């Protein structure tokens, strides 16, 4: 009986000490991820409403696609980009975004195809070069990657410049 009480009071002490930690990395990370999740959820709800009002506006599908992308829901993002492209086939950004989603899913060939289209439609789209460079780089085609980073950097894309230096250093 006495032993039991002693053991229990030890357990209580252990429980209390675990509560006294005000802050913890795993927890604060969860809290900030939850906040982000909520922002994305709210955005998607708004875009859903906008789509109900005007189902033929390509730009809303693009925006919702980006929100899904930020949530890590790449399949849904790609669905939305497809819809935007069907409504507005000459929208360079739509291909660029879809390329990014394919890139996130490690489908680099499809990503490169989309960046090619984006660049054909809008030859000064710096980010398209920058991201195509990344896709080539991931595929191990370093020469092409470097020339894309160079082009992006020339067009004023900072990420392109940064990646250019990284890639050149490794050569």
């Amino acid at each position: 009986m006495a032993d039991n009480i002693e053991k229990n009071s030890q357990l209580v002490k252990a429980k209390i000490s675990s509560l006294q930690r005000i802050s913890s990395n795993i927890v604060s990370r969860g809290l900030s991820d939850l906040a982000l999740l909520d922002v994305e959820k709210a955005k998607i709800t708004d875009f859903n409403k906008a789509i109900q009002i005007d189902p033929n506006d390509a730009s809303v599908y693009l925006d919702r696609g980006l929100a899904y992308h930020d949530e890590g829901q790449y399949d849904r993002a790609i669905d939305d980009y497809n819809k935007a492209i069907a409504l507005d086939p000459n929208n360079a950004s739509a291909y660029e975004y879809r390329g990014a989603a394919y890139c996130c899913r490690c489908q680099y060939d499809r990503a490169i195809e989309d960046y090619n289209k984006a660049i054909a439609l809008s030859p000064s789209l710096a980010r398209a070069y920058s991201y195509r460079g990344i896709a080539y780089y991931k595929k191990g085609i370093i020469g092409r990657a470097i020339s894309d980073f160079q082009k992006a950097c020339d067009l004023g894309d900072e990420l392109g410049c940064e990646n250019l230096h990284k890639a050149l250093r490794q050569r």
Partner: protein
Amino acid sequence: MKNDTTMDARIKKINSPEEDELELKRIELTKLLELLAEKELELTTLRNSVLHFEHRYLMEVGIKYVELDEINAQIAEKIARKNPQDTVFQKESEIARETANSTAREFRSNKILKEEELSKDFKPSEEIKKLYRQIAVKIHPDKATNASEREYRTKLMAEVNNAYAAGDIERLRQILQEWESSPASVIGEGIAVDLVRTIRSISQIKGRLKTIEKEIKTIKETEMHKMMMQVQEAEKSGRDLLSELADKIDSDIQLAKERLEGLA
């Protein structure tokens, strides 16, 4: 006339000032004890709710951060191995490894209790709450009149808290029964002694009430409690935030895994 006789009796019973004082203090003590029992119940309920929630959070979400950080560390290490001359990659891989290790450490150090004990949400029934209040009023350590009695009551109170935490209503009934059948603590060693004891108890209880308020405040300031509130609020509108969060990290894990494989 019945009323007159009662009245008579009342008038005839004249209390000394000490007796009156003791009577008043006893009433105050009884009220304070009820409040104390209520506050003890609130504190222990809050503490257990947060503990159960913490366990759920760690098992549903925390464990995924451990996995994600581990894969990210492996990615960084692989890149660093491929580029042994690049100091930036070497540094990044060290940082990623340290992050993964500390997340895993944190997870392990929090997972101190048995799973079956905490796997469900803490939702005490009204019946067990009532029993807790009943026992707390009787056995609370702050009612003790000397050090050894206080020690005994403190240990018993800890046991009551444990039984409550475990939802063990039978154990609580048993404790109450044992208490009721044990020889009652002596009252009536003279009014002066009783008065001193009662006043001391009142002051002890007031002190304990302050401590409880402080502890409740501390728990409510923790991030764990903040998250628990957020999750409970979302539950009302039918959302399960923890599983949404887990899904999000799962998709990050999936991506990181693909990336790791792509690097091979």
